């Protein structure tokens, strides 16, 4: 536990480094110009929203599989991760549509990745609706987890469907003139640092939320013992 606490604190160095690199060190892209710098935030944020979703799903599977309760509060971890994921998904949509406005002229056009992120957003909304409806219900953990698993298994079907329905405008085909993703070494390393620091940032928030949850449960149990 101590080791994790120390490791996630590296975000205090990584995140400023990523910001400085993104604005000052990395060169602007050929076609997109300075506006391409939003990439160093948009891509890591999108990555975190997917990572958070996967972590929620895995925690839910483990929670249902672990009927003996040997791992504490896996449903709580799934919930916390989904909460972070929801915020990052909204941020992905916002940063993405700003970038889309600058480079394509419109905020929204149902490109496959926009569609995918909206689907994840809808799943989160559904998940939090069902969790909200069961505020003081013992079934909450199990039903929420079962829902997330069910929602996750529909994702491969989307992955198959979405590209067939909407053609893509996304930067990997169009960021450079020769229609391939070309990032020079400095852009590449800036993006790598940004992805790592956002991942550590996510781990840091999740860690803090899990500790808060543990303390809250502890306080509630001991309050009962006092009376």
């Amino acid at each position, binding site marked *: 536990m101590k080791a994790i606490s120390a490791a996630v604190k590296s975000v205090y160095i990584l995140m400023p480094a990523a910001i400085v690199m993104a604005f000052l060190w990395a060169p602007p892209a050929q076609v997109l110009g300075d506006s391409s710098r939003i990439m160093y935030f948009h891509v890591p944020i999108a990555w975190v929203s997917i990572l958070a979703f996967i972590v929620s799903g895995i925690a839910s599977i483990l929670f249902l599989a672990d009927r003996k309760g040997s791992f504490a509060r896996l449903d709580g971890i799934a919930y916390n991760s989904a909460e972070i994921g929801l915020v990052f998904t909204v941020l992905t949509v916002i940063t993405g549509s700003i970038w889309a406005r600058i480079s394509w002229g419109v905020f929204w056009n149902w490109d496959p990745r926009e569609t995918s992120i909206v689907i994840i957003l809808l799943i989160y909304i559904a998940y939090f609706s069902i969790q909200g409806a069961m505020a*003081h219900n*013992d079934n909450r953990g199990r039903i929420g987890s079962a829902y997330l698993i069910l929602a996750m298994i529909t994702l491969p079907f989307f992955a198959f469907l979405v590209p067939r329905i909407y053609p893509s405008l996304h930067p990997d085909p169009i960021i450079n003139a020769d229609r391939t993703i070309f990032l020079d070494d400095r852009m590449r390393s800036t993006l790598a640092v940004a992805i790592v620091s956002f991942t550590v940032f996510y781990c840091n928030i999740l860690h803090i939320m899990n500790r808060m949850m543990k303390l809250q449960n502890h306080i*509630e*149990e001991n*309050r*009962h013992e006092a009376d």
Partner: protein
Amino acid sequence: MSTAPYSLTGEGLAKKFGRSALFKGICLSAATGESLSITGPNGSGKSTLMKILAGIQKPTAGNVDLVSGSSIEKTQWLSHIGYTGPLVNPYDELTGLENIAFAARPADAGERAGRLLETFGLGPHRDKKVKHYSSGMKQRLKLILAFLNDPPVLMLDEPGMNLDSAGTALLHSYLESVRKEKIIIIATNDPLEEQLCGRTIKLG
């Protein structure tokens, strides 16, 4: 269903709802031919304990075991247990007989259903919808539904609820007649029903 004697044991049973502990450290055991009553003030967890013993709910700590020759898998318990309680409601839209047909598992249940209907005085009302039953008639139907499949274990939560004196007498004489071949567990605050059982567990 095997004819080997059954035994039910519970060890260190505890239940917590959120932050408040309902009960803890409950130990009990009963074998075929034995009966047990569970008493305690309202809200002391009688119904919850009954549900835990029937395998409907999970205890927060401890475990329950139902053995007949070998240990029976928990998902199968309810086919060995006749359980009824205030929250087990028959279908209002169906008649008494249709509810019985729904709950009947073995092939000979139909014949026993006829006898039980007569014994508990519901014969003339068998084709009436349950929503037109009085609360006492409903309770009689619930008892019939619990006894219907001739289960080797009977778990009755407040079996005398809403019954008139004739109904109570019928219930008691029925339980008296089957007590040698079954495990009977009753959650009640009625001293008469408590006396019917061999041992008593007090909660709260």
